[in-house]
């Protein structure tokens, strides 16, 4: 049985481990910062490039490459923003770091800020994490007193402050340009790229790097072990460890940190998470946050195996790394995996997500604003007993007209669940709607009972 390899979560839930600076330092805390500020910032950026570290905020963009895009010619100040908005449904990995090991994040932020020579750093934390905000503020105060944050850090001549900034309940403020607008004190309306690539025109139109909480923690470990050593963890296309956060229908929901590609979905669902509830079997899973395309158990994927030969995987065979999920037509996203057993109604599951996306659309682009509302209305009607067979294609068609036609990737987040759920579970949609049609026909007699609502259980 594969085992966990805890790097980021090494001390999470360890008995006696606290959020205090003293505790963090007892386990080697801030030693990486101490040695990093003695090096040249460009060297640190190179380490991150050598490590092959990919962003952990959902899109998996190479971190070192992003840092390389910073506009240095403009002479404007550079800002670093840590994205702690964690609001992709199914994701709860950053919360563990913020609540249980805040100094690891702060060390990651300061190391990264030094590497990119940021003038100021922000941690944008979602508003609902009231306690997380207090924990971070307290930890930063401790770090400031110990000279790990603030002026002339450890005598290096480099100074940086960290401002913890609270969001106020908007998913779209997790999108990096929406976040920047929000941090400027405005509505969180995402900006169009080009020209607003944050590394060129970010906060206050200055070069800005936005990285996820976990990414910045990974940076600390890259700098600790060296980029080339770090790159040996995991698989060539995807280095380091991934934190898989399971939710839904498994016996042991929870988080598991596993070396990339060194275990499969089978290992994760059965060995780590204890399989489905008694008497149930798995039906579907969404790999990493609700926006990613759903997989149906029983599906087969034609793939290229590591040795270059052609192969076939079922859902359980998929290795746990970003590239492997891509081969199966989806993506690992944030690793927040939502699992559904055979008791779940797939139309209700989609309808639940459609409500979410309709609520969260910022409203700037017509396809996303109108489309997400239509999708919600259609699937809610189907759930409430008013389904028509043509709704099945309608949902797919509306979704097809959103993806790729919007300012930000929320458009894809709206479309992907529909575009994957509908064709893969068409049989369920048809059966549900046919039963409703029958019930409507016999409305006056003893109508056959149909399931109504979108309560899922």
């Amino acid at each position, binding site marked *: 049985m594969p085992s966990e390899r805890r790097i980021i979560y090494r001390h999470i839930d360890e008995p006696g481990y606290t959020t205090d600076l003293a505790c963090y330092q007892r386990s080697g805390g801030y030693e990486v910062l101490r040695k990093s500020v003695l090096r040249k910032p460009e060297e640190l950026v190179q380490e991150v490039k050598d490590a092959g570290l990919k962003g952990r905020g959902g899109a998996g963009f190479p971190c070192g490459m992003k840092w390389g895009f910073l506009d240095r010619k403009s002479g404007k100040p550079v800002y670093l923003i840590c994205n702690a908005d*964690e609001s992709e449904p199914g*994701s709860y990995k950053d919360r563990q770091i913020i609540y249980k090991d805040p100094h690891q994040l702060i060390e990651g932020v300061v190391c990264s800020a030094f590497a990119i020579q940021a003038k100021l750093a922000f941690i944008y934390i979602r508003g609902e994490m009231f306690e997380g905000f207090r924990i971070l503020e307290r930890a930063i105060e401790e770090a400031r007193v110990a000279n790990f944050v603030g002026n002339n850090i450890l005598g290096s001549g480099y100074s940086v402050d960290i401002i913890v900034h609270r969001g106020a309940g908007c998913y779209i403020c997790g999108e990096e340009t929406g976040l920047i607008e929000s941090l400027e004190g405005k509505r969180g309306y995402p900006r169009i790229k080009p020209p607003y690539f944050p590394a060129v025109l970010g906060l206050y139109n200055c070069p800005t790097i936005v990285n996820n909480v976990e990414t910045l923690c990974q940076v600390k470990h890259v700098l600790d072990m060296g980029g080339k050593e770090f790159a040996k963890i995991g698989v060539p296309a995807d280095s380091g460890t991934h934190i898989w956060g399971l939710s839904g229908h498994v016996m042991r929901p929870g988080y598991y940190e596993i070396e990339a590609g060194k275990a499969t979905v089978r290992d994760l669902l059965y060995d780590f998470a204890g399989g489905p509830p008694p008497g149930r079997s798995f039906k579907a899973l969404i790999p990493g946050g*609700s926006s990613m395309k759903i997989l149906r158990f029983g599906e087969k994927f034609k793939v290229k195996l590591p040795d270059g030969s052609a192969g076939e995987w079922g859902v359980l065979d998929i290795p746990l790394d970003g590239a492997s999920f891509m081969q199966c037509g989806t993506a690992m996203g944030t690793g*927040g995996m939502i699992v559904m057993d055979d008791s779940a109604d797939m139309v209700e599951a989609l309808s639940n997500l459609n409500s979410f996306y309709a609520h969260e659309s910022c409203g700037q682009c017509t396809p996303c604003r109108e489309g997400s509302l239509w999708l919600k209305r259609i699937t809610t009607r189907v759930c409430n007993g008013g389904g028509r067979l043509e709704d099945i294609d309608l949902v797919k068609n509306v979704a097809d007209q959103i993806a790729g036609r919007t300012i930000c990737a929320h458009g894809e987040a709206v479309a992907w669940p529909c575009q994957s759920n509908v064709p893969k579970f068409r049989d369920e949609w048809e059966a549900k709607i046919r039963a409703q049609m029958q019930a409507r026909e016999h409305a006056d007699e003893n109508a056959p009972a149909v399931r109504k609502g979108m309560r899922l259980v």
Partner: protein
Amino acid sequence: MNLLPKTAEYVERLLPRYPQKRSAMLMVLHAIQEEQGYISREAMEWTAQKLEVTPIQVYEVVTFYPMFRQAPIGRRHVKVCRTLSCALRGAYRVCDSLQENLACGLGQTSEDGNFTVEFVECVAACGSAPVVMVDDKIHENITPEKAPDFAAKLKTETTAAMPPSRH
């Protein structure tokens, strides 16, 4: 505008930390709501003056972000997560039970003014679903079976002497 000295001083300390004052918007509004329980028109005007923006620029923020409100609510703010991971583990039944036991309709405030019950979207604790937030505290694994006891406990904790929720 009658802000407690504590809040006003907090705002004064906050503003110079940001490269531009307007950036402190959400933090100032949070501070006001956590003192007064909501954002009044007067508070928006005060904020506009502090941040050197127009009142409409504050208003458009208050109306965009779900956590801000323009009127007081019940003494306890009960927020039930309804998104997929919680729904798969019974969130809708939890919400029914809380509504019944707290005598409070969804999106409404109970007659005695004690509770406001709302659905919210994923609060990033999906592994311990179903999740219910009460004011600024998160409560995990509140299954439909546990919901009645959870409601009973909330009822005993909540007294008429408490001010409207500030969270």
